[in-house]
Each structure stands twice: as C-alpha cells, then as structure tokens.
C-alpha cells in the first residue's frame, strides 16, 4: 500500500467540562482548550506504525474546519505525518459533507487506506467513516482495537457489544479506530520545529465544488437533567439499610 489518509478533527479537549450557553444557542467554547479528537490521534499513531513497518509510504493528515485547525494539523505533522490538508469550511459541517470531501481527496490522491476515529467527541455522531465507505463503495471496519496489514488485505479486530469480531477487508478500505488500538506517541520539540517545514495545503470548500447539506438542523441546546446529590452512609450496615429502604434488597 502507498498512501494512508488520516482525519484529524479539532474538538474541545476531553478534559474540559463542557457547558451549555445560558441562551441555549450552543456550548461555551470561548477560551476553552482545543485538541485533536482523541480517537484521531490513535488513528494517526496507527498509520505511522504501519508506515514504520514498511507497509505504507506516505501518511497524509486532513482536517475540515476553520483555519484554527492548522494547529491540530501541525501537531499531526510533528507526530510524523508527511503532509497535511486543510479544507476550509466554516463551523461544523455535517458528517455526510465531510465524507464527500474525504472522497474527493481519496480520488485525487489515490488513497489506499483511510483511518478515522470511531467518533468525534463533540457531536458524538459516529458516522463519517461509515459514510465515506458507503459513497466510495469500499469496505468499512469500525471500532478497531487491533489491525494487521497483509498485502492487499487488512485483518481488523473490532470491539463489538458481544466481544471481539475479527474481519478481513480488501484494500482500499476505511477503518475507524477505538481507544485500545494503541497509545499515541508524545511529540518532541525538534519534531515540532521540523513540522513547520512540512507542506500544509489549504483548499476552500468552494474550490472542491462540494455543496454542503442537507444537514440536520440544531434548534437549541440544553443542559442535561441533573441528578440530585444523594445521601452518604457511614458503613456497610448503613448501605444495606439504605438499599432496603429503597426497596432494592
């Protein structure tokens, strides 16, 4: 295989306690720490390992979003990606449009394998990879916790509700990754310097000829129902009594 494409979405860092704006028009993102979607970092790590083993020759990272996403792409380059693509599109494109954009790049750059996160932790959609595979007419292996490249096929272990499912897919293919696939490497300072010289291509949505939509409209946002704070018991005897009280024992 020659080329691996990895999607890096810029999202609110997973450690941030996200709050809904008081007027219900969105969530508070001002001054909030932004990061690469954690699953995407794992996808990139896996792509780099495949390349390190000699099973691929180029790793390309792509982000669809505002120009701020350059930051996440630079981090991806520092981790070891060879080049980056930023598709400029204002706030929050829908998964189908992102999949169409990926498909256009897949065709243009003759991509053999696309590695994405199993979900973006902002909208928790878990759609983009499956949609790309659908419009590309290629295999998908979602929720991967292990993968092995063997020439023209990839064997993927998938984390499913029943346990682990092992599938074999022909390349080209789309694989979405789960958390246990690997532990991403740390970026070292010299790599950050080197990454500044790596190519970062910027394309506008209009130049790609892609019309977004039909999207699912968000009408409003609200905070989740709060659970009231309960009671504290002193010891196991108190716990058993409290459970009996609630009719649970």
């Amino acid at each position, binding site marked *: 295989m020659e080329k691996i494409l990895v999607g890096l979405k810029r999202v609110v860092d997973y450690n941030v306690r996200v709050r809904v704006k008081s007027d219900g028009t969105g969530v508070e993102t001002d001054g909030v720490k932004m990061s690469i979607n954690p699953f995407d970092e794992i996808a990139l790590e896996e792509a780099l390992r495949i390349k390190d083993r000699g099973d691929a020759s180029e790793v390309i990272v792509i982000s669809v979003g505002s120009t701020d996403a350059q930051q996440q792409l630079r981090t991806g380059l520092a981790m070891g990606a060879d080049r980056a693509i930023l598709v400029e599109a204002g706030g929050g494109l829908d998964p189908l449009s992102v999949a169409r954009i990926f498909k256009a790049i897949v065709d243009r750059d003759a991509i053999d394998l696309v590695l994405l996160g199993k979900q973006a932790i902002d909208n*928790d959609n878990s759609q*983009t990879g499956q949609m790309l595979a*659908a419009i590309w007419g290629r295999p998908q292996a979602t929720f991967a916790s292990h993968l092995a490249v063997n020439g023209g096929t990839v064997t993927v272990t998938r*984390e499913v*509700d029943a346990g682990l499912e092992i599938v*074999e897919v022909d390349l080209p*293919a789309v694989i979405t990754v789960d958390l246990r696939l690997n532990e991403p490497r740390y970026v070292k300072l010299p790599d950050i310097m080197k990454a500044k010289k790596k190519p970062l291509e910027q394309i506008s949505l209009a130049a790609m000829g892609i019309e977004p939509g039909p*999207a699912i409209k*968000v009408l*409003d946002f609200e905070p989740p129902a709060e659970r009231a704070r309960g009671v504290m018991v002193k010891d196991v005897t108190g716990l058993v009594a409290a459970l009996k009280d609630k009719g649970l024992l």
Partner: protein
Amino acid sequence: MISKILVVAEHDGKVLNSGTAKTVSCAACINGAEIDIVVLASVAGPIAAEAAQIEFVSRVLTVERAENEHAIAAVLAPQIVVLASDYTHVFGPSTTFGKDLMPRVAALMGVNQVSDIMSVEGSHTFKRPIYAGSAVAKVEAPADSVVVATARLASYSVAGGGNSAEIVSANTTVDVPSHTRVTELKSGATDRPDLQTATRVVAGGRALGSEENFQMIYRLADKLGAGVGASRAAVDAGYVPNELQVGQTGKIIAPDLYIAIGISGAIQHLTGIKDAGTIVAINKDEESPIFEVADIGLVADLFSAVPELTKALG
C-alpha cells in the same frame, strides 16, 4: 403525512436482540406511526417469529440470503436501501451493530443520520446527547427526505409482546459486495445477566488492581443476581474483557441499581449510567466526582467494604 417506519432488527443469527423492541418503543413515540421490522438473515424464520410478537408492529419483512449470515454493513446496507423507498423513517438500535450499519444506509440514501435519539419531539424533531452527555441538542431532520436514525436504548424500555404481526418475505435482488469477510467472533458469553438488559449492575474500576481482585466484583454481583460492568481503566488494565466497559465508548446502560466500586466517575464513564435508577458508589476518596451523582455513597476501602457487603447479603 403518516409516518411509515422501518426498524432494522438486530440478532445473532438465532435470536432477536432486545435492542430491537427498544427501538420499536422509540419509533412508537412518533404519533400515528406505522411500524414494520425487517429481519435480514440467512435463516430468518425464528427471528421473524419473535419480532412479530412485538407491540406496535404491523409487519415483519424477512430478507433471506446466504450473504446475510453475518451482519456486515456493506452487505446489509444496499438491501435496506431498496426497502427504504416505501418508508419515511429507517431506525436502528444505537448498539455497535446499528452504529456500524445505519450511517452506511444514510449515506447511500444521501442523508445524514440522527444518532442516539433520546426523545422524540415530533416526526422530524428529536433530542440527542452530545459532548458525552454534557449537553442535549434538539435537532430537526429535513422534511423532504427519509429520516435515518439510531435509538439510544437506555432511553427506552422494551416494547410489550403478545402481538402477531404479519410476516412477509421481501427478498431483494440487489448485488452485495464480497470485499468484507467475518472470520471469527470471540465473545466471553457467561451465565450472568447481560450488561445491557440487567436490572442490577455491579461495576469495578482501576482500584481493583488485578484480574484476581476483580473476582470480588463477580462474587458480589452473583449475590445480587447482577450483571458486571467496568470502567475503561479496568478494561485497559486487562482485569476484564472489553464488552464490560460502561461509558461514552462502552455501553450506555439503565439498570434499576448500579453499584460503582473504585470508580472515580469521569464524565466519559458517567454518560453511560445517567439513566440508572439508583447509583451506589463505594470509593475511598470522598472528593471523588462519582459522589456528585451517587444516590447512596459510602467512603470506604473497597477491599474491606466489598467482602463485608457480600457477606451481609447472606
């Protein structure tokens, strides 16, 4: 316009998964909806017979093909798309089966998907959790295209039984690909209640420290007739298999009783237990965020409290 909803059945080739009847409950929240279920399988008969008993269901369509032996999204999706032309909505469960399959169906139909419906507000308006449940978004799907969606199962109960819907063969002739092959399924099937349907769940976290120590969670669960769950940290450390993980990237569950032992209560874990009836937390750190959501909290060392509790239950 009357809503016609096609619910995609989840099964293991032999029996229907209870997520199907929960998805039907979600679909039934749409006023006046007419609901059909489709069973795609290599042998559909017994599964369809089960599906036909579910309340609210008008018809059960069966699509029998040798290729449908395993639930491969690339194989099932084009068949569903053929049937979908008669419907206004296509729903599946938000399980790994539905999450894998339904976006592929949606993309083939040129629409986005409404993921994880937690409440139905209208035929095209729904609420769904985002940011690991830190916010709830009210969303509206376009009125002029088919709504493809997954139902967040913890928000719905299993629809009743006793129905006898008509079973109809709906074989499609569409070509399906052979580029994806299932070679093995490793499941740690046990006699314990299934995590997703258990009314009681006992879960352990990183604090258990080893696979061996985790046995005390199983012992307590057995006393309570409970299913067993775990935090991501416990799964990552290899104390238990992945299918026991509860949370944003594990299972979203809604038991009557959830006992969290040595689990700190990270947001990604809490999103999996929001709908639990009663949450009990045992943790030695009184500052642990798990106590912010616990109905009953006990600050204690689990290594003494858990054996004591197990014993107290007789």
